[in-house]
């Protein structure tokens, strides 16, 4: 089977390596060109090192790519965390169709940053979805889904990892079925009434409020937490004196608070806490300017944070 792969990020890289080990012919890899040949872990360079033909990912937006893919006799197109909207002419080329691995449960979490939105909204379960691609984003028929619990300690980084771990085997299962019995590829239409689409926006433009319940504050921090790596949403911001302070690590204490929201205290012996509307939240790491610091280096009991 001739496979074309449009891919980015670690999930895409992992898919690339899995395809390289497998029995199918990877005839095209569409990804963002590496900025330099020394960026060796980039998907572009890894694909080239493995001997595959690479194309700039943004070509998927143009009908011109359809002709090239047709000449490569593509049977199936796999999209793994590539964020370009694929032109409908390109989607029409692969004989067995085009399929996307989405890091969220569809139809409820379509669009961007599904992992962060699920954490922010306090979900206790998440999932990944393989679906047929249509011109409308994340709207095609569902092929496979897998769901798994979100644990209290999960953050955006750990949940993203779980999505990759769960998602790649689903794509490999799709390939297996597509190669042997393509008519058996499952296809369940999505219920449009359940669809929610999320764009690039960040809740509250990235600001939190100490008037919120502790659960909401902590969920927002978890939703942003890719520490020590780049956080697409940034970190929830509050004000400390005249400065902006971002919360990087926080967790619930379960200790009720009757202090004024935003008050810094010591609800337990060794922890630094900040009063929310209902409960003390333990804050262990913050960002001030471009520096990540232990909260105790910045805050002391009696300080007050404001919205």
């Amino acid at each position, binding site marked *: 089977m001739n496979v074309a792969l449009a891919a980015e990020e*670690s999930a895409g890289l992992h898919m690339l*390596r899995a395809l390289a080990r497998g029995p199918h012919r990877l005839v095209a890899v569409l990804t963002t060109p590496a900025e330099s040949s020394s960026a060796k*872990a980039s998907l572009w360079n890894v694909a080239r*090192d493995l001997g595959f033909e690479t194309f700039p990912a943004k070509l998927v937006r143009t009908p011109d790519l359809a002709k090239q893919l047709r000449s490569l006799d593509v049977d199936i197109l796999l999209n793994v965390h590539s964020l370009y909207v694929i032109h409908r002419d390109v989607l029409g080329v692969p004989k067995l169709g085009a399929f996307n691995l989405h890091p969220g449960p569809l139809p409820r979490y379509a669009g961007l940053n599904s992992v962060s939105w699920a954490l922010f909204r306090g979900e206790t379960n998440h999932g990944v979805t393989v679906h047929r691609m249509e011109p409308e984003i994340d709207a095609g028929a569902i092929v496979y889904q897998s769901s798994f619990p979100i644990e209290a300690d999960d953050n955006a980084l750990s949940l993203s*990892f779980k999505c990759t771990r769960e998602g790649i085997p689903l794509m490999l299962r799709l390939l297996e079925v597509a190669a042997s019995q393509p008519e058996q590829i499952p296809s369940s239409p999505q219920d449009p009434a359940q669809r929610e689409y999320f764009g690039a926006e960040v809740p509250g433009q990235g600001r939190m409020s100490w008037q919120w319940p502790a659960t909401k504050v902590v969920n927002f921090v978890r939703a942003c937490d890719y520490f020590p*790596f*780049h956080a697409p949403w940034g970190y929830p911001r509050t004000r400390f004196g005249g400065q902006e302070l971002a919360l990087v690590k926080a967790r619930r204490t379960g200790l009720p608070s009757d202090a004024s929201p935003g008050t810094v205290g010591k609800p337990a012996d060794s922890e630094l806490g900040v009063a929310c509307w209902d409960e003390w939240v333990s804050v262990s790491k913050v960002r001030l300017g471009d520096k990540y610091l232990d909260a105790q280096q910045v805050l002391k009991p009696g300080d007050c944070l404001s919205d």
Partner: protein
Amino acid sequence: MDLGGANTDQKVIQARLSALFSDVLHVEVPAVDTDLFDTGLLDSQRFVELLLYIEENFHTHINIEDFEIGNFRCIEKIAALILQQTNGNAVPQSADGAHSYPAKTR
């Protein structure tokens, strides 16, 4: 307690991890105690790759309670985590040094 054996296992795992960094993640780590985050050697993409390859190559499962970033700060700490998870039964590297990832074709 066979401390000598545990030490040997730890060294074997460290060597395998160093090879993994070099061959798969394309990162040369100067020493087993080099801080992978502070030096910028491990970005988020490589980090997720690393976790997946640890699971595949050491037949272990990264649980949420292991997901403390400090456990992955250097090769020494990662090896200790793997050793603890596999209860000293980390699979020895095969004689030919084979990994479950593809070799370069050019």
